[in-house]
Each structure stands twice: as C-alpha cells, then as structure tokens.
C-alpha cells in the first residue's frame, strides 16, 4: 500500500457537461500503485484558501502512468479545478484508502449514480482483467438526465459487460431510479453488487441487496482533512455504534459493516 505525492501535469481537460469535468493526469507512481475504489487528495489552487485538499476517486489508470478523475463542480475547490488548463500541474497524493475487493469467481453487478460512476470505470476494467467470463455481469448507470450519463457511456462499452442506463427524467434508458432497474434483474445468489452514488441511492441499493441476500460493497463519502488516517476527522458511524474512518477503513465498505439502518 505505497503512497506518493506528485506534481501531476494535466494531460487532458474534458468538460463533459456544464458541471462535470474529467482530468487526465500524469502521475507515474500513483497510477501504478492504484487499485479500484481508492482515491487521491488533490490541492485546488495554490492559495491558502481554500485550505484543504479535496478527495476524488480514481476514475481509471493507464499503464503509461496516467490517471483520470471525474468530478462535478459543487463548490469552491471543484470550481477552481474546473478552471485548470492542460499543461498546468496539480499537487496530488495517493492512492489512498481500501478499494473494492474483487473475487474473480463470482458474478458482479456495478451500480453507479451520478458522480458515483467515477470509481466504477476502474473497477469494471480490473474485473475484466481478472475474470475469464463476464457474461452474466451487469453495469447499471443512473443519472438525472441523458447529458450526465452519455459522455461516460462509451468508455463502459469497451468491456464485455452488459450496460443498462436509467435517468430521472427518462431522457436516456429507463425512466426512474437505479433500484427500479435492479429490481428487474434477478441477481445470482453469489453475486457481488458494487455501488457508489448519492447516499440515499446507495442505501436503497443496499436494502435491495439485503432482501435478495447478495453481498454489497459501497463506496461512501465524508468530509476529509488528511485522507490518510491522521486527523480522525472523516469518521462515520458504523455497526454497533462504533466509528470507522472513511479514508483508512474505507472508502469502500461491506454494507453489513456499516450498520446502515435500512
């Protein structure tokens, strides 16, 4: 679990929608060491304000030392990152946290909502590398509108995994929520569901999985200062009222460990 701090050059800047941006960064060591579900801490701007780094899931890595992050502008930090230009550098450290655990022998279903789709590309890629057969696997991508999902779709189509899309307004794929899609699927018993997205969405997915008695791994968020287990600031409440730290115990958890009140 080696970590690195790098000044990463922005190789490519993609404005996917009004608010969604994808950055391709040259980060030799981080890209090499990263596993799906892990994240990086990025410094937005060079000023002391905003002060803290921002956490972002690793969207995918490449063998030539590149790494992508995909994010939505939600405030000042992401706003600054959305004003970066190709050729500039960003201070990045990682990879951080515990990622998804993969079992090559079991069928999977990836369920992403909105920016929660970010870590799933890397996960899908790795799954295809380690598994012989992905025929029974499934990817469900949900979002508010077509605009949000469409730019990401072609990347997922690289894999030999079935994709279903669903939007709040029906502008792409099914009309409704990811759980509406999930209900239509009959998840095999030994299936692992991986999910990332807004908390209410993840909770309904987790509830559904519990009903259907399939394992579910979720990638959760929390406010972070250090990203590496030092500040103890990223706590969330887990099973039996114990606290866990999202940055070092997670960000990926088995839902049964979180003790979500489903």
């Amino acid at each position, binding site marked *: 679990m080696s970590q690195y701090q790098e000044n990463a050059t922005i190789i490519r800047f993609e404005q996917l929608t009004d608010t969604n941006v994808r950055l391709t960064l040259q980060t030799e060591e981080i890209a090499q060491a990263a596993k799906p579900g892990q994240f990086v801490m990025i410094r937005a701007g060079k000023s002391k304000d*905003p002060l803290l780094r921002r956490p972002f899931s690793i969207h995918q890595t490449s063998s030539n030392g590149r790494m992508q992050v995909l994010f939505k502008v939600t405030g000042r930090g992401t706003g600054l990152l959305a004003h970066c230009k190709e050729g500039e550098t960003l201070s990045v450290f990682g990879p951080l946290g515990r990622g998804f655990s993969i079992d090559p022998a079991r069928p999977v279903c990836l369920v992403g909502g909105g920016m929660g789709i970010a870590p799933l590309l890397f996960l899908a890629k790795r799954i295809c590398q380690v598994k012989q057969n992905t025929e029974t696997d499934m990817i469900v991508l949900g979002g508010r509108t077509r605009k949000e999902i469409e730019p990401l779709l072609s990347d997922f189509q690289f894999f030999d995994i079935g994709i279903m899309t669903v939007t709040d307004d029906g502008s792409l794929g099914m009309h409704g929520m990811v759980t509406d899609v999930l209900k239509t699927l009959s998840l095999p018993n030994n299936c692992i569901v991986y999910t990332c997205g807004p908390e209410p969405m993840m909770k309904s997915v987790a509830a559904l999985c519990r009903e259907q008695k399939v394992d579910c791994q979720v990638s959760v968020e929390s406010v972070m200062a250090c990203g590496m*287990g*030092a500040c*103890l600031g*990223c706590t969330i409440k887990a099973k039996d009222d114990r606290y866990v730290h999202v940055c070092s115990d997670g960000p990926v958890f088995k839902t049964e460990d979180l003790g979500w009140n489903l």
Partner: protein
Amino acid sequence: MEFVGNHDPFPDLRVKIGALELQNPVLTASGTFGYAREFVDLVNLHRLGGVVVKGISLFPRMGNPPPRIVETACGMLNAIGLENVGVDRFIELKMPYLRGIDTQIIVNILGDSLEEYRHITEKLSQVPGIAAIEVNISCPNVKKGGVAFGSDPDMAAAVTRVVRDNTSLPVIVKLSPNVTDISLIAMAVEQAGADAVSLINTLIGMAIDLRTKRPCLANVIGGLSGPAIKPVALRMVYLVARSVSIPVIGIGGIESAEDALEFMLAGATAVQVGTASFINPRASEEVVEGIGDYVIREKLQSVRDIIGALESD
C-alpha cells in the same frame, strides 16, 4: 581542524528542550500526524526533530460524532473529541513502531482529572523509547477537564505538578490560547516544574451551515487551526518567551521554514507543524530542510542563534 570553506553542508540545527535533545527544532503537532506510521511513505521520519503523537488518555475514547471537521477561511475547525486507543493499547500497538524511528517520540496526554493524569504518566514513564511527555491541558473539545485545567493558573499548575512528580521524563505543558493572559498560565506551570511549554493549542470556534440552519460540527464548537491563527500564536509565543525562562515550543499555522523561523525569532526554541501536514504531508520535513538552508545561507553558527533574535526598538 574544521573543514575549509564557509559552507558547512551539515548545518547545526540541534536544540535542547530542557534535558531533551532534538536533532532539529521541528516537531509534528499532536493530532495532526497520527502515530507517524501513516506518513512513512511520504516523509522521511528520521529527519524530523521529533514526533508528538495524538493525545492519549487513560482509557480509550470514541471521540465525537461526525461531522468532526469543517474548513474555514485559511483554517479548519476540528472536534475530534480526543478519539484514541487509550494508554495501554497505545503502548502495545503504537510504541513498537515509533521506537524504530530515529527521532524523539513525545507523547501527548490528556485527562479528566488529576488522578487520570497521574496514572497515565506512571504508565508511560516505564516505557522505553519515550523522550518526553506533552501535557494537553487545553483541548477545548471535551466538556469535563479540558477547558478548566488550561484556563486557570492554579489548576494548570496542579496538573503540571502531578505529571512532574510521577516521571523523570521531560514535561512539556501545552497551553490553551483561549485565556485572557496566557503568560500567567505559563508562569504557573513553570513554577510547578514544567521543563517547557508548547503553544498554542486551537482557538475555540464555530461554523454554521446556512442551508441546514445547523452548526457544521456535531459538537457545535471546535478548535480552529491553520494559517488563520498564526498571528495569534506568534504573539502569544512572543509574550510567553519573555515571561518564562524555560524553553517555548511554537505552534500555530506553521507551513514553511519561514513561518518556523519567525516563531524562533519570537523566542521559540522549537516548533510544531500541525494542520500543514494535511495539506502537504511533507511539510514538516520541508521545514527542516528550509531551516537548514537558511542557517547555511545566513552563515549562522547554529540555528540557536536566531532563537529570540527579534529586533525591536
């Protein structure tokens, strides 16, 4: 005979905090560097003057409910609530690794009562590899103890005495800035036998989320740290350094060697790097490097030459 030439590539950065000898004046601040291991991939731990570990209490503490941190202008508020594994498990689980680092390990302790301070001091005093104890009398997050010990000279002295009487390790007392006159507290703990004082701990602060109409922290209030508090810290270090004759360790918003050197000019013998380690995990090591460069560039005999060297009319 010494080497010929002006530029000593190994500047003399050693400082002494009472009996405690540091290879350089740069420590990591309690609660901002975990138990050091978290940083091993990113920082050369052996280059640090010392590591002050997260505050340890007699019994394990769960800490406060989330959210525990929120960013503010050039700073952050934390209400961790002193989450820690307790002294026994600290000794068992954390000390073996810490002992292996070629630096001084300082254990930050806290308690809700004099009894707790005594117990924990006794336990730590028997543990090899601990170089000093830093007594947190200032944490604003815990209702009992914290605030009271740090804001009253008599109570601060009482805690100091308990720790002093139960260990032969150097005792550093960490002062709270949330007082009318910090020099009174500093003088009281000096009298009570402290070998050094470190300051400042966090300022008490609060943030509100207008959208939810609720405090940003579950604990409502928290401790303010980071560059925002540096001017307050610098002034208190300056004041305390002129009020006591024991060494002063400067803390508060230090991010760079320049910041650290300013605290030393104001009278600090050593400094601690806190919140900066979150933004730049290498901050503490870079402060060491930067101070070294300064000593060489300014052709100082030793970094000690700048302690308290502030000029004014």
